[in-house]
Structure formats: structure tokens, C-alpha cells
């Protein structure tokens, strides 16, 4: 199954008032969750996500994107537990933070005793567009089984000047070069949306958000 959630000025809460997004996957259940956080300006967005990998062969994919350029405060917390053997999870979280925005990502992966053959991966990449923006990432792994493949990684950086130079040498203005770089950065998240029409519509929204930065 595939789920796409868009959090923006009109839809600040996707949990239906519950406050937490609760997900439990049984044996052989597969879920691809695409989460786009595109706040409009000054709001605070807090999104706790709890995922229980509770059946063999279950698979969870999270692709999340957050674009902030003003004074937003966004906090995404993913708490993911592998309770049983033989399930897999992969998380990709990408944030673009400009203006005076504050973005935090806390990701805990917990592999419980006996949850052998678990595969759990988490990657968090962030781009800072201004010196006043702040991104904090706290990836955490707690592993209580020995036959598992798990990794997490986090990077925070700025837009690459060599890439910009390459594009500018082709006559692309610095402004357009930055847009292409940002588009390139957010692309893997959008690519996880399999419905082409839906992806196109979301792509438009993402473009708008990027061009406001």
C-alpha cells in the first residue's frame, strides 16, 4: 500500500486529531509512506510517527520531505520498532531549511530481542540555506538482536558551489541553478510516489515551495 500525506498551511495535522500517526504492520504487509511537510510561514508542526513492525516479511518505506523558508518550527519524530524477525524498513528524510526556520528530526530504530534478520536503514539529509536556519537530527539505533542489518546516517550541508559553477558555465543563472540543485535534492522523495499524475501535482507544490525560498 502507498500513502501520501501533505502537511501545509491548510492541513497542519494529518493524524486526524490523534496527535500521533500510529502504524502497525502485520506479516507480509507493505507500506510506502510519503510525507511532504510544506508549511506556509510561521506555524509549528509537530509530527510524531510510531511504527510497529509486527509481522514477518513486513516492509515499511518512509520518504519524507520538509521545506521551510521563513520562521517555521517543524519537528518530526519517528519511533520505529522491529518486534519480530524478518521485517524490513527504510527511511529517507530530506529537509531544506532557510530563513529562520527550525527543523528537528528524531529517529529511533529499536530492534527487539529475537527480531533476527531485521533490515533497518535510515538516512537524514539536510540543506541549510541561511545562517539563521537550524536543523538538528538525532538518529538513534537500539539493537537487541545479533543477526541484523541496520544503519543510519545524517548529513547537513549547503548547496554545492562546484555544481553551481557547472550549471552557470552553461548559462544557467545562479538563481535557476539553486532551484535545479534543490529539485535534485528533493527528487528521491518525490520519486517514491508511484502514481504519475499525483506525483506531478505534488511536484508542482514542491516547486512552488522551493521558488519561495
Amino acid at each position: 500500500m502507498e500513502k501520501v500525506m501533505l502537511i501545509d498551511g491548510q492541513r497542519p495535522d494529518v493524524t486526524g486529531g490523534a496527535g500521533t500517526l500510529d502504524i502497525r504492520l502485520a506479516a507480509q504487509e507493505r507500506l510506502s509512506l510519503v510525507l511532504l511537510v510544506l508549511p506556509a510561514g510561521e506555524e509549528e508542526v509537530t509530527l510524531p510517527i510510531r511504527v510497529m513492525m509486527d509481522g514477518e516479511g513486513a516492509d515499511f518505506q518512509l520518504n519524507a520531505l520538509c521545506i521551510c523558508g521563513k520562521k517555521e518550527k517543524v519537528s518530526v519524530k519517528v519511533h520505529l520498532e522491529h518486534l519480530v524477525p524478518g521485517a524490513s524498513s527504510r527511511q529517507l528524510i530530506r529537509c531544506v531549511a532557510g530563513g529562520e526556520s527550525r527543523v528537528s528530526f528524531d529517529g529511533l530504530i529499536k530492534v527487539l530481542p529475537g527480531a533476527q534478520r531485521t533490515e533497518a536503514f535510515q538516512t537524514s539529509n539536510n540543506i541549510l540555506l541561511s545562517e539563521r536556519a537550524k536543523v538538528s537530527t538525532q538518529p538513534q539505533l537500539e539493537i537487541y538482536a545479533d543477526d541484523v542489518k541496520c544503519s543510519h546516517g545524517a548529513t547537513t550541508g549547503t548547496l554545492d558551489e562546484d555544481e553551481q559553477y557547472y550549471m552557470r558555465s552553461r548559462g544557467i543563472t545562479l538563481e535557476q541553478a539553486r532551484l535545479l540543485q534543490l529539485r535534485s535534492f528533493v527528487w528521491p522523495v518525490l520519486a517514491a510516489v508511484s502514481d504519475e499524475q499525483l506525483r506531478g501535482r505534488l511536484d508542482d507544490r514542491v516547486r512552488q515551495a522551493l521558488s519561495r525560498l
Partner: protein
Amino acid sequence: MKPLLEIHGLHARVAGNEILKGIDLAIGEGEIHAVMGPNGAGKSTLSAVLTGKPQYEVTEGSVRFKGQDLLAMSPEERSWAGIFLSFQYPVEIPGVSITNFLKTALACRRKAQGLPELAPAEFLALRKEKMALVQMKPEFVKRDVNVGFSGGEKKRNEIFQMAMLDPDLSILDETDSGLDVDALRIVAEGVNRLHTPQKSTIVITHYQRLLDYIVPDYVHILKDGRIVRTAGRELVAQIEEKGYESF
């Protein structure tokens, strides 16, 4: 010969190190110049300075392109003026197709020149014509810029971009590095097809082999930031025989 590019007493440094120590070079319309030299001589620095790479600081000298002060222009302005650099290490841009990339490049240039964007049909016709010129398969332009490309594909993509942008001065920076013989020939044939009596080329290379295909009118030896010898194409054989030591 009408001068297209005139370099006078060019000194440049990067990260505090002086790399170019007084370069004089004039390129006329229609000419092909080879700049050869050992590693660390300043060959790539020269191409970086001519195209306005950040972090490279010109400390002395002047460069005029079509009579204009080139050094006062941004990298994109230099491109609009008609300069193109084929990169030694082309950059990968995931999520951006070659088509989208080139559309953006052409749109930026046309906007700067006060022209409207090309109509989709015009763009497609241009793309088709230039793809044929460098023998590219149609599916190639749908791929993301340089992502997962082999060395040969990257260089071919550079030449395709060169064909699309139709520059007056092309600088080929170590275009032969990492290419096998077949890829080298395809790339060189593309460059030769694009050459006209009005267009000029600077071929920066370490070795003779690219110059077997792209035949220069002039050969310059760059060593320790200076051009130490300029001659005709016969100089290539001398370098191959004696190495750079003796110059």
C-alpha cells in the same frame, strides 16, 4: 586573423597559491589551439579562470573576449557571450534530466538576450539535430545529467551540450582523460563536426592522442604557470619524443 580571445599578463591564484604566473595568449577566429603541459602546470586553472570559477582569483592581467572585459563577467554571462568549457569532471545532477537542464540553460540565455523562450517544437527540432551531430541515442536525453554515466558518456554529454549551446570559443579540458579509443574518436568527431571557420577551440591536454583527431593550428606548452613555447602542430611530436622536461 580577428582576435576572439586576448589574454595579457594573466596571474591567478587559488587557495593562496599562485598558479598562473603571467600568461599571454591570443586566439583568433577559426583557430584551434592546444595547450599542453605536465601535471600541475596550470592547465585546468587556466580553463577555470576563463570561465569564472569561484575561488580562483585573478591578481594581475586582463582577458578580453570579443573585445569585452571577460573577467568582469559572471560565469553565466561568459556562457551567454559564447564561451563553453567541457569539464574534465562533469558534475552529476540527479533528478534533473539532460533535456530539462538544457531547456533551462537556453531559456536563461534567451531571457538575458531579450528573446522569448523557444517553442517546444523548436527546442525538440534543435535537440534532434544536435543529437544526430554527436551520434546520441534518443533515450539518452531523458536520463539525469551525468548520473550513472560511463566516462565516455559523460564526455559525449559535454559535447552534446556544446552543440546545443553553439559557443564561439570551446575549451576542452582534458576531454581525453578516462576515454577508450572508441569513445575518444566519437567525441573528437563531434568536436570536429561542430568546428567552423568562425569558431575557435582550446584543447587542453596532457597527451598527444586527442590531437591525432583534433588537429591544432598552434601548440603551446604551459609549464609552471607560464607558456614556455609556442609553435605549430609539429611541437606535439617533439613533446611526445622528449617529454616536457626539455622545455
